[in-house]
């Protein structure tokens, strides 16, 4: 038996790789005995001993899980007209939100492909904080810096802050125990103070569960992590690795850049057109995306629920009869459903409820076309 990595995550490594960057919580992960993997050039925990992907996943769905996602990028656009400038570049409409709200948005190419999907925190008209994906941060910052008019500052703050996600129904209790603010509206954030240190507490996440993402200064991150783990323990909360984060987001049908979105996969195809400000005067890729929307995309994102035994994986062909109708972009075992699930890009002829066959390394696995999420949750609950 050989242990081979699949797409959507790095290979498991037990030795440190000097070429990889490490999170401010690296020592904590090593002390916990986590299996580490390369995520976008960062050596991050994939799972922890005593947990494992399934238990960590279940902790989030039933109680609470704490994730180190400090590999995520941090960037800031500041100066007069920062909001207006970002709004003229990124796809979603910052006019739809007010100060103190965060927004899922896209950085597109002129041909409509996606350089990155990211979260924009609107702090004020002069200050927009961005959380891009680890591997794409430098490029997003370069593109914005190159386009920025005189007087605006675009900073790459990747190693200025940590990011810790607290996800699950018991998230409020965990934050309450630390005296951090809770209960604010979905996709809104509060800038607060913890032990004398500034922390941003945003009601966001990538799991589908109620939860928060905390942005402390880099050097405060380990202290905050320790306090969160201690507060989560009485609820059966666990430190969770990026393996569980991937199964959780796949159950929700959330796009992962590099799989469901890429420079070759547009938001129209990926069905994230809701994150495009179609009525805006301009943004990168607008002309191409408007044209594609009008003509109809050549392929569209769907979920596939395996009805046969087997686990679909990225790049598996999807067929109706002998005809290939598309390809799996992410596939895994759903710990909640105990079933194979996949996200796929399929021909426009395919519709919800259709029966398809997934070619899993030469074995045919039957599946039904569905609209994600695969699991019912209420991330927005007041």
């Amino acid at each position: 038996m050989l242990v081979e990595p699949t797409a959507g995550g790095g290979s498991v490594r037990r030795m440190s790789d000097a070429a990889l960057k490490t999170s401010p919580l690296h020592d904590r992960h090593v002390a916990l005995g986590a299996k580490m993997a390369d995520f976008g050039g960062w050596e991050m925990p994939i799972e922890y001993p005593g947990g494992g992907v399934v238990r960590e996943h279940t902790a989030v769905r039933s109680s609470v899980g704490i994730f180190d996602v400090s590999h995520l990028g941090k960037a800031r656009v500041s100066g007069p007209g920062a909001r207006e400038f970002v709004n003229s570049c990124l796809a979603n409409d910052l006019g739809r939100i007010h100060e103190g709200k965060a927004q899922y948005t896209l950085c597109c190419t002129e041909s409509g492909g996606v350089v990155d999907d990211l979260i924009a925190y609107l702090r004020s008209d002069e200050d927009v904080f961005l959380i891009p994906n680890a591997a794409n941060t430098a490029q997003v910052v370069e593109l914005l810096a190159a386009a920025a008019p005189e007087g605006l500052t675009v900073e790459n703050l990747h190693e200025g802050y940590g990011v810790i996600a607290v996800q699950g129904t018991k998230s409020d209790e965990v934050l309450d125990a630390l005296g951090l603010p809770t209960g604010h509206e979905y996709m809104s954030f509060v800038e607060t103070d913890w032990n004398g240190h500034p922390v941003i507490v945003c009601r966001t996440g990538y799991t589908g569960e109620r939860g928060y993402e905390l942005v402390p200064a880099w050097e405060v991150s380990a202290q905050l992590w320790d306090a969160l783990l201690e507060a989560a323990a009485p609820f059966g909360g666990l430190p969770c690795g990026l393996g569980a984060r991937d199964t959780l987001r796949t159950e929700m049908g959330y796009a992962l850049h590099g799989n469901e979105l890429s420079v070759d996969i547009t938001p129209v195809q990926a069905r994230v057109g809701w994150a495009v400000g179609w009525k805006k005067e301009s943004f990168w890729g607008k002309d191409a995306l408007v044209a594609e929307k009008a003509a109809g995309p050549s392929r569209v994102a769907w979920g596939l629920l395996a009805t046969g035994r087997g686990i679909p994986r990225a790049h598996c062909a999807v067929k109706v009869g002998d005809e290939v109708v598309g390809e799996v972009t992410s596939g895994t075992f759903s710990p909640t459903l105990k079933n194979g699930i996949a996200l796929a890009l399929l021909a426009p002829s395919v519709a919800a409820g259709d029966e398809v066959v997934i070619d899993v390394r030469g074995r045919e696995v039957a599946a039904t076309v569905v609209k994600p999420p695969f699991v019912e949750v209420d991330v927005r609950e007041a």
Partner: protein
Amino acid sequence: MSELDYPQDLRYTAEHEWVRSGDDGTVRIGITSFAQDSLGDVVYVSLPAVGDTVSAGDACGEVESTKSVSDLYAPLSGEVTAVNESLDATPELVNTDPYGEGWMYELRPADAAAVEALLDPAAYQAQLG
């Protein structure tokens, strides 16, 4: 990973499988403690069928975790005489009891002496490094 163990009465392969000789001339095969730990939670196991003939080194099945897929290689040539059907519903037995309830399949080796040529526990652990 101090809890990983390698029973003395088994033979091993470089592909992280174990082989146990039975009384009736068949051998039972599974994956090692190291293998299940490296894979993480096993969520799907695909095994050969009873009656299949396999050759040593052939890929004859797959073990999947949430994130990875690994081939099972036949450690010996022979005929498959039994498979562990309980892994269909409870693949996690591979993690919780890799040398017991988590066994995978049984073979009648074409050459009974071939078992002795596999790695002994010390040799297997030595190549884990």
